[in-house]
């Protein structure tokens, strides 16, 4: 009995916990929070066992492993003889990575929640139920062995997101944000559904192993391209890529722990995971790959611009998340394109490495932000300042997170971001599009460093703001997860240097084993590396000058009418929010009013019109009934006469 055979328990345990907390949580301490922690930790432990067995080589020789993948599968529904839906688990290195990331971050966030949600009273039960449910379905999504199962968990993850964004449902803004998130991601989900249906009807299977080992011949490539394109549509929605990005900033209405877990570290990664998982399919369809890369790059750039001047600490982090997800998509797209042209598959590895790093440092940043918000009671950075003196641990750990995301060596973000940019640069040799995307990527790196340190300086340095008066460090139950996450955020780059490196474990096609020495040599002999370092440091420097030293006043950004209007444009998210709202309110709702009018007046009008006409006709026709015997008799005699005449004419009478 290998531990991996129990992998199916990994999602089941938190789901059971959710049921238990839901039914019995009222009577438990902290509304069932400890059960939630226990379940999540147990899943984490099991995931660890899975990861260990993947890494130590027992993987290749154990039972049930074929081609480096462990699969358990069964039929869920037999639809017809040609179509059936399966249910099962599929474990390879990518799965192991995702399990690790999701379970670690989830456990730490739930521990943190005990303190953060401490004042919620009776609502805690609902919170822990929904969070456990989320952890369960997210793990299920990662373990799925076919597209339908993944889609089911995908939607359930969306449900949890809806429930948790709208956790404080008495707040109209929260309820509205939850609805928006669900509907926008639903648009993406429709595309995902179409993609699944295309694959299902063309290839008659949705099983990953079967699909990935297929030889796709000429005629079907077109359908495969459409299939991958629509599947990417789903990823756009879930990972908040342009143009379906607008829901994520609004999703910050939920508790910060929710933002950290769902909207930074795990759920939004599902889209990236989908593309990565489908890499064998995407790698055969270069058109889709270009689309993936373009959307990823454009999203990264646009989102970073919106983070530049937002005053809300959580919003900045939300835009940052969108931007970093864009990086991951960009890497996958460019990497896939390189692979298609037989130029290596580092893109896959670098994207996944960035995914792992981002999960850690973004969760860290959000939890630090939560710590700050908990202490000062506001999310507006303009009211903060000087908190570095009173919140030393939070300040320090957030600094580590900021350094990491900005790509300052030797923190982990530097390594992964550098790899991503290198992949894009390489792809530039194949098409000018990638050169353009590279430029966007570098610019984004600059902006990332800038806005992250703008955030850090505004919050922790400088003069204390209006809200900073009563700030204090957060309780240990909150700071310990912060510290743990900061260790991960800082040091996760070490996986590059252990053994054959990250690339030997997470790879596509052939392994990218790299010894530590080679890696260092390769990295630091490449001029690109220095370019990205310079860019990151200059971003930091600019933020330093403006927000710390106050050498340059931040008013320079709004000094001219041009910059002023740019500034406003960024705050209004390029008008997308207003645009979507107007579309929904005016176009869609307006159209529905028209159709409703049509339905009531025209369609129903015809029905009522018919009955009205008949009633009026009846009014006239009934006057035949005069009540006079003589008129009846007249009609009878006239009728007889006519009949006789007709009979005579038609030959009946002689």
């Amino acid at each position, binding site marked *: 009995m290998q531990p991996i055979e129990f992998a199916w328990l990994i999602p089941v345990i938190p789901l059971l916990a959710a049921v238990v907390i839901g039914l019995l949580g009222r009577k438990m301490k902290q509304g069932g929070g400890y059960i939630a922690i226990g379940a999540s930790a147990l899943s984490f432990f099991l995931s660890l066992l899975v990861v260990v067995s993947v890494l130590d080589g027992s993987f290749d020789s154990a039972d049930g492993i074929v081609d480096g993948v462990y699969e358990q599968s069964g039929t869920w529904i037999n639809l017809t003889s040609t179509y059936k839906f399966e249910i099962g688990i599929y474990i390879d290195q990518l799965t192991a990575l995702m399990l690790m990331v999701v379970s670690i971050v989830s456990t730490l966030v739930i521990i943190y929640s005990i303190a953060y949600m401490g004042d919620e009273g009776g609502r805690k039960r609902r919170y822990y139920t929904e969070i456990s449910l989320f952890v369960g379905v997210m793990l299920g999504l990662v373990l799925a062995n076919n597209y339908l199962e993944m889609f089911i968990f995908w939607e359930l993850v969306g449900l949890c997101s809806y429930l948790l964004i709208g956790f404080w449902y008495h707040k109209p803004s929260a309820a509205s944000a939850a609805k928006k998130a669900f509907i926008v991601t639903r648009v993406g989900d429709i595309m995902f559904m179409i993609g699944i249906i295309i694959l299902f009807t063309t290839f008659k299977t949705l099983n990953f192993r079967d699909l990935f080992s297929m030889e796709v011949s000429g005629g079907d490539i077109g359908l495969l391209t459409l299939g991958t394109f629509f599947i990417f549509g789903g990823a756009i929605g879930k990972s908040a890529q342009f143009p379906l990005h607008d829901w994520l900033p609004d999703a910050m209405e939920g508790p910060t722990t929710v933002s950290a877990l769902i909207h930074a570290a795990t759920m939004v990664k599902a889209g990236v995971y989908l593309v990565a998982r489908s890499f064998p399919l995407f790698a055969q369809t270069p058109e889709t790959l270009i689309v993936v890369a373009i959307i990823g790059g454009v999203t990264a750039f646009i989102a970073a611009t919106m983070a530049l001047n937002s005053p809300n600490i959580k919003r900045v982090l939300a835009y940052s998340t969108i931007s970093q997800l864009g990086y991951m998509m960009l890497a996958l797209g460019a990497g896939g394109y390189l692979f298609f042209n037989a130029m290596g598959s580092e893109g896959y590895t670098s994207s996944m490495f960035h995914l792992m790093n981002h999960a850690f440092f973004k969760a860290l940043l959000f939890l630090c932000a939560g710590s700050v918000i908990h202490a000062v009671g506001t999310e507006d950075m303009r009211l903060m300042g000087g908190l570095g003196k009173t919140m030393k641990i939070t300040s320090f750990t957030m600094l580590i997170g900021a350094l990491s995301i900005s790509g300052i060596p030797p923190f982990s973000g530097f390594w992964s971001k550098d790899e991503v940019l290198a992949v894009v640069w390489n792809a530039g040799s194949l098409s000018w599009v990638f050169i353009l995307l590279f430029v966007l990527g570098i610019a984004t790196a600059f902006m990332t460093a800038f806005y992250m340190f703008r955030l850090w300086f505004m919050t922790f340095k400088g003069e204390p703001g209006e809200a900073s008066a009563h700030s204090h460090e957060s309780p240990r139950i909150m700071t310990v997860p912060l510290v743990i996450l900061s260790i991960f955020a800082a040091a996760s780059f070490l996986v590059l240097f252990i053994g054959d490196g990250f690339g030997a474990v997470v790879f596509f096609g052939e392994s990218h084993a790299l010894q530590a020495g080679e890696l260092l040599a390769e990295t630091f002999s490449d001029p690109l590396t220095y370019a990205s370092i310079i860019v990151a440091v200059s971003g930091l420097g600019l933020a330093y000058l403006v927000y710390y030293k106050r050498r340059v006043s931040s008013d320079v950004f709004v000094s001219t009418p041009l910059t002023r209007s740019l500034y406003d444009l960024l705050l209004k998210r390029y008008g997308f929010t207003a645009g979507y709202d107007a579309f929904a309110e005016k176009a869609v709702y307006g159209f529905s009013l028209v159709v409703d009018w049509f339905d009531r007046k025209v369609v129903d009008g015809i029905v009522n019109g018919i009955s009205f006409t008949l009633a009026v006709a009846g009014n006239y026709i009934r006057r035949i009934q005069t*009540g006079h015997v*003589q008129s009846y008799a007249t009609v009878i005699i006239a009728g007889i006469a006519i009949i006789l005449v007709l009979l005579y004419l038609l030959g009946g009478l002689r």
Partner: protein
Amino acid sequence: MIPIEYFLVLSAILFALGAYGALTRRNTIVVLMSIEIMLNAANLNFVAFSSYFNDVRGQVFALFSIAIAAAEVAVGLAILLNLMKTRETIDLQEIHILRW
């Protein structure tokens, strides 16, 4: 012999007159009389044919017809009397309860 056509035409004219009276007159008694005229027209027709074809069945039927006419008038007058009692009128134009 008088040609049969004369009898038939007379009978037709009588029938038409009777029909006209039955359908248009307002006084119920006049209507009953018109109905009598119609019946007599039919009788005349029967008898004329009976005589012309030397078939006694026509006259027999005419006798039947007379008897029925008598019975019908009796019933009709009874109804008329009842009508008079309940409605105070025998003007057929006034009686139209089963109207729309």
